């Protein structure tokens, strides 16, 4: 497979502008002759569906939730970055670009990231115009805060619900188009296969989750905005329904999967409390601005925190990183927490560290702390039953975001012509580590301002034969889906779908989580195929296919995670370096920091499906850096 990134050259400031001009346009009168399928309705999918319909295309939009407003973008708390420089603190498009490339540990494309930084300013304008209630200063201007260790205040926010408000903005724009008949919305409908005809993506096979009916839709192009694959770990901050099925089906139809081992672990989540736990809850990163993180110096110290004197506490982030202290980036903070817990100094169940506000309370008063964090403190108390004003919070890292995803070129097109991937579902802009408040920016950049331009070029320049749902390729894909459904229902085994998912999650968390090594990855690569085999023989899915059947839905998703997890471990094994969220224990500096290997691994790893029982093929897209020169990240 040949990877053509189509990245423009020349001065980086004008690349996107020039490229846009060179893209072919579709005549306004012809736009209504084209049909586009949008899978997913989050920030990327919702904004893309609305924007394409505004341009005149006929759009069909699909989501598995009961309404497009429920997509998991809604749960993002912190904010959205934009290089507006409203605070006059020296921010610029170049600075946002620079921070993102560096924060991604030099594993993203410069051209893409620069475009993202340029577009960031348009996103804010768009969202304000839609009525997103961003936080304001008394003079009526937009408020900003700093976030995730950035040295400028460029984060726009709507209380702790920025994702919700941005999604509602996109959802309302989408509903407007639905009301006008330009978008046909299919909620409670899940994509189960991609239809490829003459080498081009021409449609999808879906299951109506209410009636169970399997049907197909054909179109001139297909866009996947189906989010990340964090739920391969079972416990994550993702929604329960978040899954990799759409991107995995696309992979098996020829779309390359890039850098699946780049997964982000968020340092401040509420720890696991028992085996029944169904998901993990994030506590906003902003808590680290005032909370101090510590564990007891002594191993296995079971005293309550109030009885551990100051001299017997280890404020390990402040000790190891005196200049950044508790504010080191996510990957560094997460690994440090794991290290102290591995030493046997974790608190609670052993997998937790304290986030202590006692100093902040004595400095700001209880009221002062309340003003800043009351929502988060209430949420913590609701979940744990402990009062964080009097007892330190317990936190532990959890899977939060996945930087890897379908490989896309500068047009956001995958290696299957006519198949696009946007938002978290693609791999493009965050490299090996995403900065805080950048996910919302990327999802909306792709959906509002990149895809609507680039998809036109494809439609204008590609000869697309008329196809119908009677095409043999459609029938064949539908038969495949029906066969799989029957297999789940006929297995009549002993174990529930969730028990397999939990076992897979624990396995990849242990061997391919915060720290990875060759032996562990090899263990996982032996164990995952065994587990998969057992799943197909011994899974227990009751009921039938022609009804609302949540166990059947989950079975399909878990079956795909069981395949995806293997590729993730393969990628982690192949990448013999540590960078961003990917930490290989064999590759670290003497003081335990990530050690990149730019000479051999400065590339995006794009895995190509070679057949059911064959090893996938590794394709490499080399990365070059003309503006931001790779250096070792240091937060000491």
């Amino acid at each position, binding site marked *: 497979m040949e990877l053509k990134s189509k990245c423009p050259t020349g001065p980086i400031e004008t690349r996107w502008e020039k490229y846009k001009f060179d893209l072919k346009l579709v005549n306004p009168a012809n736009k209504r002759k084209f049909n586009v399928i949008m899978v997913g309705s989050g920030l990327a999918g919702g904004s893309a569906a609305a924007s394409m319909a505004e341009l005149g295309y006929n759009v069909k939009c699909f989501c598995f939730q*009961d309404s497009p*407003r429920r997509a998991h973008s809604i749960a993002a708390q912190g904010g959205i970055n934009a290089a507006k420089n409203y605070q006059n603190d020296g921010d610029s498009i170049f600075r946002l670009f620079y921070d993102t490339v560096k924060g991604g540990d030099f594993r993203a494309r410069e051209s893409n990231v620069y475009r993202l930084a340029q577009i960031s300013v348009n996103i804010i304008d768009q*969202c304000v*115009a839609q*009525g997103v209630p961003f936080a304001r200063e008394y003079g*009526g201007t937009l408020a900003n805060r700093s976030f995730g260790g950035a040295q400028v205040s460029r984060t726009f926010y709507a209380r702790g619900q920025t994702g919700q408000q941005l999604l509602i903005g996109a959802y309302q724009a989408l509903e407007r188009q639905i009301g006008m008949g330009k978008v046909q919305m299919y909620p409670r409908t899940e994509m189960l296969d991609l239809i490829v005809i003459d080498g081009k993506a021409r449609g999808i096979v879906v299951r109506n989750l209410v009636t169970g009916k399997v049907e197909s839709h054909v179109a001139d192009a297909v866009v996947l905005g189906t989010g990340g694959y964090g739920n391969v770990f079972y416990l994550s901050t993702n929604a*329960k329904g978040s899954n990799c099925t759409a991107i995995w089906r696309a992979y098996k139809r020829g779309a390359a999967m890039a850098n699946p081992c780049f997964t982000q672990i968020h340092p401040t989540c509420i720890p696991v409390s028992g085996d*029944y736990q169904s998901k993990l809850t994030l506590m906003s990163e902003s808590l680290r601005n005032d909370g101090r993180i510590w564990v007891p110096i002594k191993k296995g110290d079971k005293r309550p925190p109030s009885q551990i004197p100051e001299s017997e506490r280890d404020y390990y982030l402040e000790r190891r990183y005196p200049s950044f202290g508790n504010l080191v980036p996510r990957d560094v903070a997460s690994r440090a927490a794991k290290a102290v817990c591995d030493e046997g100094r974790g608190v609670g169940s052993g997998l937790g560290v304290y986030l202590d506000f006692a100093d902040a309370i004595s400095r700001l008063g209880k009221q002062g702390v309340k003003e800043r964090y009351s929502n988060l403190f209430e949420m913590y108390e609701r979940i744990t039953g402990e009062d964080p004003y009097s007892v330190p919070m317990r936190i532990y890292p959890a899977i939060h975001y996945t930087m890897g995803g379908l490989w896309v070129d500068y047009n956001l097109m995958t290696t299957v012509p006519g198949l696009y991937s946007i938002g978290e579902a693609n791999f493009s802009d965050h490299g090996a580590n995403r900065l805080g408040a950048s996910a919302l920016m990327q999802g909306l950049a792709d959906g509002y301002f990149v895809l609507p331009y680039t998809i036109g070029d494809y439609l204008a320049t590609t000869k697309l034969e008329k196809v119908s749902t009677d095409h043999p390729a459609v029938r064949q894909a539908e038969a495949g889906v029906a066969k799989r459904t029957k297999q789940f229902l006929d297995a009549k085994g002993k174990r529930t779908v969730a028990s397999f998912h939990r076992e897979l999650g624990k396995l990849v968390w242990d061997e391919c989580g915060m720290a990875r090594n060759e032996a562990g990855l090899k263990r996982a690569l032996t164990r995952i195929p065994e587990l998969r085999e057992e799943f197909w023989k011994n899974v*227990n899915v009751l009921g039938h296919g022609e009804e609302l059947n949540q166990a059947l839905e989950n079975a399909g998703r878990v079956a795909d995670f069981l395949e995806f997890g293997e590729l993730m471990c393969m990628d982690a094994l192949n990448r013999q370096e540590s960078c961003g969220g990917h930490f290989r224990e064999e590759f670290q500096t003497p003081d335990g920091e990530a050690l990149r290997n730019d000479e051999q691994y400065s590339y995006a790893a794009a895995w190509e499906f070679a057949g059911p029982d064959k090893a996938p093929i590794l394709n490499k897209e080399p990365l070059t850096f003309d503006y931001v020169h790779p250096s070792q990240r240091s937060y000491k």
Partner: protein
Amino acid sequence: MKLTLHIWRQKNAGQPGHMAVYNVTASEHMSFLEMLDVLNEELTSKGEEPVAFDHDCREGICGSCGFMINGIAHGPQRGTTVCQLHMRKFKDGDVLYLEPWRARAFPVIRDLVVDRSAFDRIIASGGFITAPTGSGPDGNAIPVPKTNADLAMDAAACIGCGACVAACPNAAAALFTGAKISHLGLLPQGQPEREQRVLSMVATVKEEMFGSCTNIGECEAVCPKEIKLEVIARMNRDYLRASWTTRGEAAREDGI
């Protein structure tokens, strides 16, 4: 802790439902939905079909979950969705009755799952600001007084879960619709369409067979985002004004 659950079981919209009794052992640290997960695992192992319920983020923000617990939408804890409700709020030996949202506009799909797509149609009929992609001026070109921005945000916090409708003896959608009308109507960007918005959204509410609001206030009491009744007052004020001031085809077409 041991609990007795009476749960509404209904195979699909076309068949009658019934209450079924289950016993379940739970830990006080579980969330309510995790307790149902445990029940479902047990049922599946015994060869009985699990209870269907809607849920997704389990962080109280997506609005997917929700059902009645002993007659209260989202259960006994104020300002909390059922996914964020924890078992420590219950006692050993409690008997709980779980039923789906009951409203004509929200037909039951299965067990505790209902069809809330009427909410989407209300939004599609006017719950937006027309601002096609790329048409916005610079973000700071539209100053918004902080008080208005904060009030708009209070209203925009609605998660569209439907608890307000389920709690209302009239099954009215006034809190939901009023929240959107307030969010957009409080902002300068929302002014050009303010009157048309309220007229068409209210017309859609009627078409979707929601009941009328009689100011009872059950909606506010159960709203997990604690949206205030004042949004209904704003809606009524806007509606009254728009009914008087809007002339021409737009108003008549909606049959108002």
